[in-house]
């Protein structure tokens, strides 16, 4: 369904749900995960329904992920970085 850009060396390693992936640099986390076949990024806290990235431009908030321990990050607006550790967003935010 989604293809990573051809002829771009996959020089960046990220971890998603405890599995590592080599992905191309200069793309967003949401794009990288879609390129690896991961569409379901979170579940609605209200209905429990699964959610996939929709707008890819920072408007719809359906691509929220936990990135390096920070919950509810907009993964379509954040570029992949070497060693990023990513989890699906399945739980509520926590206060101090």
């Amino acid at each position: 369904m989604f293809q990573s850009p051809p002829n771009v060396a996959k020089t960046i390693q990220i971890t998603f749900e405890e599995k590592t992936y080599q992905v191309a640099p200069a793309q967003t986390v949401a794009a990288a995960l879609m390129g690896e076949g991961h569409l379901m990024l979170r579940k609605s806290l209200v209905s429990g329904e699964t959610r996939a990235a929709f707008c890819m431009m920072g408007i719809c908030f359906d691509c929220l992920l936990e990135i390096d321990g920070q919950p509810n990050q907009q993964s379509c607006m954040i570029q992949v970085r070497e060693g990023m550790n990513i989890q699906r967003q399945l739980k509520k935010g926590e206060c101090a």
Partner: protein
Amino acid sequence: MNTMKADVVVIGGGVIGAAVAYGLAEQKASVVMLDREDFQLTASRGNFGLVWLQGKGHGMPRYAQWSQEATELWSTFAEKLEDQTGIPQYYHRTGGFEICVGEEEYSKRSKFLEEMRTQSLTGTYNCEMISRDELQSMIPKLPLGPMVSGASFCPHDGFANPLHLLRALHQAFTQLKGQFFPSADVQTIEYNNDGFLIQTNTTRFSTRKLVIASGLATTKLSALVGIKVPVRPQRGQVLVTEKTDHLFPFATGRIRQNADGSFMFGASHEEVGYDLGTTNGVLQDIANHALAVFPTLKNLQLIRSWGSLRVLTPDQKPVYVESQSCPGAFAVTSHSGVSLASIHSSYLVDWILSGQTQPMFEVFDSARFDVPVAA
């Protein structure tokens, strides 16, 4: 071009126009509601959703009373809308605070409440100052910041989901055979012995009664029927956090928690014309106030922010006025479209349909802004 006839045409599909149109349709009038494009963040889509009484009507006691009546009608109003549409309103009349940071804010707020009590039409004002300890005992899950000195508390205050309100008003209006025309741009309004001819970009409407509830366009459209209503935009910015556990069952004028669990922070006031943007400085001030009050919220991720424009008359109080030169044309505008939705769909409809008003209703006439200029 076809001309469509209606008993009443309402120009404006925001929370005020829709409340009036819905109330009219409930009274079996044939009603047309016109609205422009909704790609702009209008006041009805960008507001904070408070159903609020405290602090309203300073300098106009009749408006304080009007707000109180609206609040008293809100539960029944919300239940009826839910029954008619199945759209939950999430109305909570839990009581509301204005939380004071520092001693000066506390004494200012006490003085303000005393003024409200003094000018009240009944001699009473149902809003009390409470101490920091009392406040803390009411919200045990949220430790107060060290500078919090206390709060004012009004048991009538609460909040609803303003987007659900707007959707329910529109759906109920349509269910009651009201006719909605979106993307309608009003070009001309003519007045003659038969009433009003309203020309939009696609359709012509003929009606005996016309209600202008057009937000920031109210001044321009009212002028076409001989009504002078000055309104201006004032920007408010809003911050929304990720969803978290239910910690705050009340609301303040600046902080509330939605049914879904996200916190909303707001209540900035800027004079920036029609600019809908957000600015870092103002958003920082909003966040700083929230953290001064509830420091434990500091770990919550901020998810989104927006700017939206209030619709303000010169004294920030509502205007309800019928045209003298074109009788049957009404202008309706208020900053508090959500709080007053209940009364806009009931008492205001009686006034539009039959001229019935309650005592002292004339204080809402826009004539109050026509101060003679000294020669």
